[in-house]
């Protein structure tokens, strides 16, 4: 009946052994020599409850570094910056994969070992339970009074004979949903006994929980392999067609292939922002004035190459599903349309500039690079303020997220922008160290301040910059992960299994019916819980009540009450 490994409920096993008069399990024997013995020993160790517990705790500890240092899975740029700022520690931490914790070899090793341990536990346990479910309840222990719960009722002279009492006791247990086996005559030649057990589903739930966890892991792995995730910024009036080249950023899974990209397109027609404009009864701005309340992107989508174009909305918390992929509205901002002309009057740059909002009032960072300008390349860096107000000393800040008074506040630079070397650059960053400053608050020419429709002339006739109008843009994430449904289903079955295994009680009951010397019928019964059971005493009382209902129980019952106060067998450890 006992198996060497399989995450036994060790503490409770002792109680059963105690009642059966056996000694507690001896310490595991020393490993036998030889490879097979060693392997078997290692397997036993790995699948032991103690190892599983250690691996669990190790997993918790190993997860923590991921919240201390930036992770590439979230923000590769932040990791790069961290390493640059900490040139000594950074590379060392990187070597130990502290910036890729959840895909690191050590984190993977822990959870893979944990899952191997879990599988090595589940299989023998499931096999054992399958046998138990199809076999009779365990044999009646000799010393019922040593079970955690024990009781006895003596019937008076009107009571039924032992054989009939046995049958009636079996009825009582059946009504309490025990699986019952009546043993009319056991080996001790007592009148007879009953073995009963219920709550087999508890172990089933336990196994379902653990199997479901394996299912979740498998779905996570498969999902990650076939998944893709991409990002795209779309300016008002522009569109996006789902093709690899169209993405701004793209993160494919290991086994992703390009033909997984379903054909669909999306065009941004208009974008609406809504902000809190509630005023107090006194007519002043309310406490949440200017907070974002709603973002709605009015889009036209086409699912499939021959699909019908359809007008719809894309909102936060309400993704669009197209061809198996999901589209999410993850960001938005302003895209001022700027035209840069060089010294010859040729257009060196023209179009909407994606700005990066930095706060709740959309103070937005912007960079313009005009490498085609001649005689010198031109670069601009500064802020877009939707509602610019003077903050004194020539400084301006944004007072509101909506474009009531949009202004560009820029510095202008001339020189080699470094784009010709072919080294990939961040489009949102301008390296100004080796550039000549044309316009800035620090130089005599001053900074550039532009309202829509205004043109600024750069010093030395190097060109002009014109602020034409303000457009909106949205940032969308496009994700495809075929593992999601499986993960959800397995999480729910895991929860169902967890609830069953935690709150369903598995109980064994035995009844022994015998004739006393005075010719009366004595019914003794004992109860044993498998697993945690805090209400075993209540079950004892309930069974006793049922017996008293059908039988004339004789009054003196001093020996009946249980001597054990422990409500669980673990109480034996004292």
């Amino acid at each position, binding site marked *: 009946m006992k198996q060497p490994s399989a995450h036994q409920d060790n503490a409770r096993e002792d109680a059963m052994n105690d009642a059966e008069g056996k000694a507690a399990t001896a310490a595991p024997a020393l490993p036998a020599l030889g490879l097979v013995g060693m392997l078997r020993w290692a397997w036993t160790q790995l699948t032991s409850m103690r190892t599983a517990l250690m691996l669990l705790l190790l997993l918790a500890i190993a997860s923590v570094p991921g919240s201390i240092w930036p992770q590439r899975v979230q923000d590769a740029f932040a990791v790069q910056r961290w390493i640059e700022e900490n040139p000594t520690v950074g590379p060392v931490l990187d070597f130990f994969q502290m910036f890729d914790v959840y895909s690191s070899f050590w984190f993977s090793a822990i959870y893979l070992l944990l899952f191997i341990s879990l599988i090595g536990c589940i299989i023998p346990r499931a096999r054992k339970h399958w046998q138990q479910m199809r076999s009779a309840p365990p044999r009646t222990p000799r010393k019922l009074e040593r079970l955690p719960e024990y009781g006895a009722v003596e019937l008076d002279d009107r009571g039924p004979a032992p054989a009939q009492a046995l049958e009636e006791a079996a009825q009582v247990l059946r009504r309490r949903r025990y699986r019952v086996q009546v043993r009319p005559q056991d080996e001790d030649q007592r009148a007879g006994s009953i073995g009963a057990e219920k709550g087999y589903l508890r172990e089933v739930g336990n196994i379902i929980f653990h199997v479901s966890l394996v299912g979740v892991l498998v779905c996570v792995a498969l999902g990650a392999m076939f998944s893709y995730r991409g990002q795209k910024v779309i300016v008002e009036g522009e569109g996006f067609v789902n093709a690899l080249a169209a993405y701004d950023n793209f993160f494919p899974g290991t086994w992703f292939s390009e033909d997984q990209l379903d054909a669909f397109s999306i065009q941004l027609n208009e974008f609406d922002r809504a902000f809190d404009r509630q005023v107090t009864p006194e007519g002043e701005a*309310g406490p949440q004035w200017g907070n974002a309340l709603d973002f709605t992107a009015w889009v036209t989508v086409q699912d499939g190459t021959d699909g019908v174009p359809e007008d719809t909305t894309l909102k936060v918390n309400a993704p669009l599903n197209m061809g198996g992929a999901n589209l*999410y509205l993850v960001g938005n901002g302003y895209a001022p349309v700027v035209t840069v002309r060089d010294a010859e009057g040729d257009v060196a740059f023209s179009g909407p500039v994606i700005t990066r909002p930095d706060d709740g009032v959309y103070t937005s960072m912007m960079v313009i690079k005009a490498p085609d300008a001649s005689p010198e390349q031109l670069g601009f860096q500064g802020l877009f303020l939707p509602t610019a107000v003077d903050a004194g000393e020539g400084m301006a800040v944004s007072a509101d997220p909506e474009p009531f008074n949009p202004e560009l506040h820029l510095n202008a630079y001339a020189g080699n922008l470094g784009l010709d070397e072919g080294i990939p650059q961040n489009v949102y960053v301008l390296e100004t160290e080796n550039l000549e400053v044309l316009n800035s608050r620090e130089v005599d020419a001053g900074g550039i301040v532009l309202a829509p429709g205004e043109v600024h002339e750069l010093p030395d006739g190097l060109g002009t910059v014109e602020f034409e109008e303000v457009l909106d843009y949205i940032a969308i994430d496009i994700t495809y992960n075929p593992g999601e449904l499986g993960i959800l289903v397995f999480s729910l079955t895991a929860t169902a299994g967890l609830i069953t295994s935690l709150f369903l009680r598995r109980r064994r009951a035995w009844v022994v019916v015998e004739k006393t010397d005075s010719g009366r019928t004595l019914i003794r019964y004992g109860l044993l819980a498998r697993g945690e059971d805090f209400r075993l005493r*209540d079950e004892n009382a309930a069974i006793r009540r049922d017996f008293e209902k059908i039988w004339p129980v004789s009054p003196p019952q001093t020996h009946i009450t249980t001597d054990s106060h422990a409500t669980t067998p673990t109480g034996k450890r004292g």
Partner: protein
Amino acid sequence: MLTFGAVSLPSINVELAEYSELFMMIAAFIYTLAFILFTIDNAQSSRTIRRLETDLAREQESLTAQPMKVATAAAGPPPAEAASPPPEPKDTHNGARDPELVDEDMAYIGTRRPLANTAIALTVVAVAAHAFAVVSRGLAAHRWPLGNMYEFLVGAALIVALVYLLALHRRDLRFIGSFVLGLVVAMMVAATIGFPTPIGHVQPALQSPWLAIHVSLAVLSIGLFVLTFAMNVLQLLQSRRERALAENTAQGWGGFLAGRQFMRLVPKAFSLENWAYRINAVAFVFWTLGPMITGAVWARESWGRYWGWDTKEVWTFVIWVVYAGYLHARATRGWTGTRSAWLSIIGFLCIIFNYAVVNVYFPGLHSYAGLPD
């Protein structure tokens, strides 16, 4: 009604919101009174015990004639009591030095503690005021009132107090009264001073029915974990004390605790451990459903991925694993008792860390605290 293109949000009821804040203050004030009373009750343990002992001695005399009818009305189903002997002072290993003053199963056994009882009555009043404050805030804003750090803290405080009262209804948990009320007061103070947030609508990312489900389940499980934390801490102290009493030593921590009268009104370590386990099991299910599963569902709905190892997600996972370890430890030889209690305590410290430190200092997607810049 404010209408903007595609949305129309009902306007905030400012007057009701002001009532909400007023009742929040009233509740905090009454909680503080209850906390003080609980603390005085603890400090006066020795007097309580002396009175209890004389009561017990008197009952002892009449015991032979008539079995004591204990306060079964409050102690749950009476049959359990009927099957077991009356809780007379038993010959425990502590001998005559420590007669049974509290029930092993934390049932009420008629122990009179007037100060603690007054504190409980005050807590009931405070919870009523508190509940009104939370509900009216939700009504005033026309949304589920768990949308920022202030609302989260006062909501969690309400659930902690409510869970404690419900538990008190079934079991004699007066021994953790000062701890629970102290925590509730601390949460209310932290909310009002640390994260004062004027009433308003929530940002688009939080406008989802999942907010109510996800955050409420998290708050509920935290309310339960608070109780088990207190029980597990007391369990550690009590087991030290029990060992010191058994060895008849007055040295060290255990010896110090053995002399504390207050600890005599705390149930046995074994009983604390069992109840902590039962509550932890329920809380673990809520944690699985709330922060883990509905969190993943909402993250997929809102951010486009079900799990992304955001700092908050990391700590949610850590907490889940620690409590999973706790549940397993209970079935591992050599890990029951003190060690499993430590796991439960560590789990709760992780929760505190997750809400107090991660929310405030770690940048992440869960930065909805509404903190002033």
